[in-house]
């Protein structure tokens, strides 16, 4: 691996909906779905882990929510600016293995956790176009990334807390794990916990992408520990994708 923080060019940075931004950078590394980059704000010490949403012609697209200091700085970037990135990092979803063993796949995303699920669905379809993908996306109010996920889904269901789009309520109201060979999920911890519990009941396999605050991003500092049945794991290096049955919430 020869990756390291380096300056690359911002090709696009635009608000897609209230507080949700799309960032496209120049980047040639090949990326697995579920992998992330550390993006370093100019005024910060620590990189911000952001999942890859899409890769295309030597570009990488991220989708990020405006949260605090770092993402606020990102939101102010313009096309042509430079930005320090470092990645791809983490294990990511192992598409080859997933597709080998599973044909009916649920892709579940909550909030900004939908971002990595776009590339996940896309790569699954690219690996085996005959697999069946039903995507379940849940949002608070505004919906985003819908067009993108539809492209790679055989079916798409949506839930919003406010009822502004699709089902009013939680995305977990719509999901029946029994219908699937495997569930792939990224979203708020509370949602992932619910999904895992549902999968456990129906005996469905489930992979989840965990979110922990990070420092090194490469497995050296142990600040991103995820407790699992097999002991402490590093979310940045051993994850962020874990077997849902293993994680101790």
């Amino acid at each position, binding site marked *: 691996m*020869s990756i390291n*923080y380096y300056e690359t060019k911002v090709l696009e940075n635009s608000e897609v909906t209230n507080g949700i931004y799309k960032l496209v950078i120049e980047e040639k590394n090949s990326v697995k779905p579920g992998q992330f980059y550390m993006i370093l704000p100019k005024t910060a*010490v*620590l990189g911000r882990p952001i999942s890859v949403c899409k890769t295309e012609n030597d570009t990488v697209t991220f989708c990020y929510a405006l949260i605090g200091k770092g993402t606020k700085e990102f939101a102010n970037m313009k096309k042509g600016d430079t930005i320090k990135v470092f990645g791809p990092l983490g294990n990511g979803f192992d598409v080859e293995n997933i597709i080998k063993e599973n044909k009916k796949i649920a892709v579940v995303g909550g909030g900004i956790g939908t971002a990595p699920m776009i590339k996940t669905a896309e790569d699954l379809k690219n690996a085996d176009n005959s697999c069946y993908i039903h995507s379940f996306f849940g949002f608070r109010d505004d919906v985003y990334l819908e067009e993108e996920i539809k492209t790679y889904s055989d079916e798409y269901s949506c839930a919003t807390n406010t009822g502004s789009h699709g089902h009013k309520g939680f995305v977990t109201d719509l999901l029946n794990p029994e219908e699937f060979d495997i569930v792939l999920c990224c979203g708020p911890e509370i949602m992932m916990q619910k999904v895992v519990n549902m999968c456990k009941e129906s005996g469905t396999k489930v992979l989840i992408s965990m979110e922990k605050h*990070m*420092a090194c991003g490469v497995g*050296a*500092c142990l600040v*991103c520990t995820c407790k699992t049945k097999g002991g402490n794991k590093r979310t940045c290096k051993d994850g962020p994708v874990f077997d849902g049955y293993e994680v101790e919430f």
Partner: protein
Amino acid sequence: MMSVSINGVDFKNPIIAASGTFGFGHEYSEFYDVGMLGGICSKGLTIEPKEGNSGIRVFETPSGMMNSVGLQNPGVRKFIENELPYMKTLGTNVIANIGGASIEDYEKAVMLINETDVQMIELNISCPNVKSGGMAFGIKSDVAKEVVSKIKAISKKSLMVKLSPNAENIVDMAYKCVEAGADSLSLINTVQGMAIDVRNRKPVFENTFAGLSGPAVKPIALRMVYQVCKEVNVPVVGLGGITCGEDVIEFMMAGATAVQIGTANFMNPLAGKNIVMETEEFLKKNGVKDVKEIIGAAQR
């Protein structure tokens, strides 16, 4: 030109990876040949494996970060079995950083390390001392003195004691540790800090307090290194917020024989390598033939 020696242990250069920021060397080996460093301090080791703290473990601060890892580590035995053999292949000095909640803990750990071929022990006395109500060993000089002299009595390795900036009196602390037998000192460990989550109205960390590191603390670390170097006559290893070659030069001019790089590794995975190169460049540019010449140059 870059070599230094600490208590009989030779370092190819004075740049050492700081404990807890470099794992056991594996991860950064993916980025560069970590054998080019002067040494690597292992993650803090305790006699029994430790799970570490729960809750959030890291928080960014202006030009710094706080951590509350809580000494998560596989225990000394697993270290010797699984990590040390690899570390020995890296071609640099291995320093075993040892923590403990009681003097017995420290002693047991050191006895095991004695039988290995690590070059040095770094005794981390910032750990909460269970017997004195959780106050760290490194706060009161007399408490530190006791643990250091007990460890010195049994250690077969060169003994470096790592001081906490939270010590009541850093100079007295250094003095007492040397009196108790420390062969060298390293400082500073993290500075106790805290943050509050104003939305939840609660401290960010489950343990309330956490350890501040990074560039923010550099002026404090440098001051303490300068003060300690003035007072003791053993080699001192300086650290705290070093991110570039000039920072290394500052610490060495303050009197440090070598330095450690911690948080900087997170800011740039090649930090160790870059800092070695920058330090060398500075010396060349300024016509310094031997890095040892600048040690203590700013003392007066």
